[in-house]
């Protein structure tokens, strides 16, 4: 029998349609059908100035807007050859790790809810709310933050922001213990996840998996540590790896990442450098408001950047960062004008989704639900 799962199915995390060929409860074949959320963002980018693309990148993966911002601005900065002041880089790391926690919390809550553990969802969204408030403090927005700009970050965080982050880092490890108490040794949870949707390291690499999905299969690779960007090389953190390659292994990797991320946030708070938050490049970075009121030049640059954008030297760059879901890559091609010639996003989820048939064929329908949750897909990123 052929069965449609989705596109409006609560456990497909958005609008993913799966065509299941089943025999009783057993899945014989599985065909993902995507594209329901395709908005043509890559095409839209080609018609915008470089700085106008930043808000579009938020909307690709709505669970980790900052990671997308970061990847895009790093690519453009590489094209421009801009040097970013240390404070801006550390702020970016701080925000990125909070974003990772935010994204993992949504994943954990919804994944557990799919499998039937409803309480975890409420716990996770309680802490997520704290992070969204922090984002709102810094950027004025809870979700579509657009906080990073080409050349730095948009604003200096307001007074009291770092204290609030510190409060959060103090309480959060205890909260992770709470989630783990509910799940890790829970017999129902382990039965639903252990040995389910296995994938070997060779298959994961061949199919292009990345992030926790790859590390859950025993491949020790993390772009933050192995190909550092935005001063990640100055932070000390462990990269959690599990070898079983099943749903439980991916769960363990992500839960440990929550703890590592909060440790990075703590380091960022303790060592946060003083200084500028924007690069010294008047033709690219918008001037401060105060300067615009007193200096003619600043006013002219502001007018020029807003109305004409800034030209980027011709060339091409592929910048990859470790998003909560894996390797997020931006390939930006410039033809020397103020608008990008081509912006391509390498979506980690698109590659990770290809693992699904490999994981689920020959198993039960209920395992498909667990498998979809464990690869942590965001359809906005897949379809773009």
């Amino acid at each position, binding site marked *: 029998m052929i069965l449609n799962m989705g596109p409006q199915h609560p456990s497909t995390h958005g609008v993913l349609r799966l065509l299941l060929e089943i025999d009783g409860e057993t899945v014989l074949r599985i065909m993902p059908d995507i*594209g329901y959320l395709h908005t043509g963002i890559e*095409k839209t980018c*080609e018609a915008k100035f470089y700085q106008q693309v930043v808000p579009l990148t938020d909307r690709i993966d709505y669970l980790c807007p900052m990671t997308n911002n970061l990847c895009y601005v790093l690519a453009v900065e*590489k094209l421009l050859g801009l040097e970013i002041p240390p404070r801006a880089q550390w702020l970016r790391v701080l925000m990125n790790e909070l974003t990772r926690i935010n994204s993992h919390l949504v994943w954990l809550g919804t994944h557990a809810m799919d499998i039937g553990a409803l309480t975890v969802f409420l716990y996770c969204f309680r802490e997520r709310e704290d992070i969204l408030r922090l984002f709102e403090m810094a950027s004025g927005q809870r979700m579509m933050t657009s906080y990073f700009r080409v050349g730095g970050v948009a604003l200096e965080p307001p007074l009291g922001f770092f204290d609030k982050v510190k409060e959060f880092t103090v309480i959060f490890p205890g909260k992770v213990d709470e989630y783990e108490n509910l799940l890790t040794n829970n017999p129902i949870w382990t039965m639903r996840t252990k040995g389910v949707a296995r994938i070997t390291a060779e298959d994961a690499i061949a*199919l*292009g998996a990345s992030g926790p999905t790859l590390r859950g299969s025993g491949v020790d690779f993390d772009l933050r540590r192995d*190909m550092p960007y935005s001063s990640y090389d100055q932070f000390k953190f462990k990269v959690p790896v599990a070898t079983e390659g099943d749903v439980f292994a991916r769960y363990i990797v992500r839960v440990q990442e929550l703890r590592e991320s909060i440790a990075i946030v703590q380091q960022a708070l303790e060592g946060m450098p003083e200084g500028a938050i924007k690069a010294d490049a008047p033709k690219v970075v918008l001037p401060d408001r105060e300067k615009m009121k007193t200096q003619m030049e600043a006013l002219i640059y502001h007018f020029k950047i807003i109305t004409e954008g800034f030209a980027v030297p011709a060339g091409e760059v592929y910048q990859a960062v470790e998003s909560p879901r894996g*390797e997020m890559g931006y390939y930006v091609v410039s033809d020397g004008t103020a608008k990008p010639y081509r912006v391509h996003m390498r979506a980690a989820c698109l590659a990770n989704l*290809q693992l699904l048939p490999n994981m689920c064929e020959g198993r039960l329908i209920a395992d498909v639900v667990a498998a979809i949750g464990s690869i942590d897909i965001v359809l906005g990123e897949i379809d773009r």
Partner: protein
Amino acid sequence: MPLAPAITDLEELKGHPALAHLLNWNSKAVQSAKFDRDELSITIDRFFVRDACAALRDYADCPFNYCSDVTCVDWYPSEPRFEVIYHLLSIQNKERVRLKVRLDGNSPVVESVTSVWPGANYFEREVFDLFGIRFTGHPYLRRILMPEDWEGHPLRKDYPVEGYR
């Protein structure tokens, strides 16, 4: 920091494992190379793409075993019009390389690399869908993001941003 000028001399770039290996393997396949902004791009003759990818994947000293991405750039109206781009990564050696293939606008066809990396499947389908490049030997070359009955390939430069109304 000012941008360093791009290096395009093959002799000077031989230090990079990917280029050295490809030149050793089949120097006719390599058309040109460019090192710009710390990234190496190698342009490959379109008849050798699949074999060049397999050679890089199986290179023992620095195996480019991971296909990060396959995409395309449309240089309309110049010819050859399309550039199909492969971003490869060596997980062990932490090296990246970019392969490029130039295809003409009339019948853009290139051999699929899905037999080298099964993970290239969706990426190639996306390029087929949005650019209209055909990949021979692909197991399931159908539209992936746009509806099945869509006309045209939206990411081509002669396709209007607002679409046809």
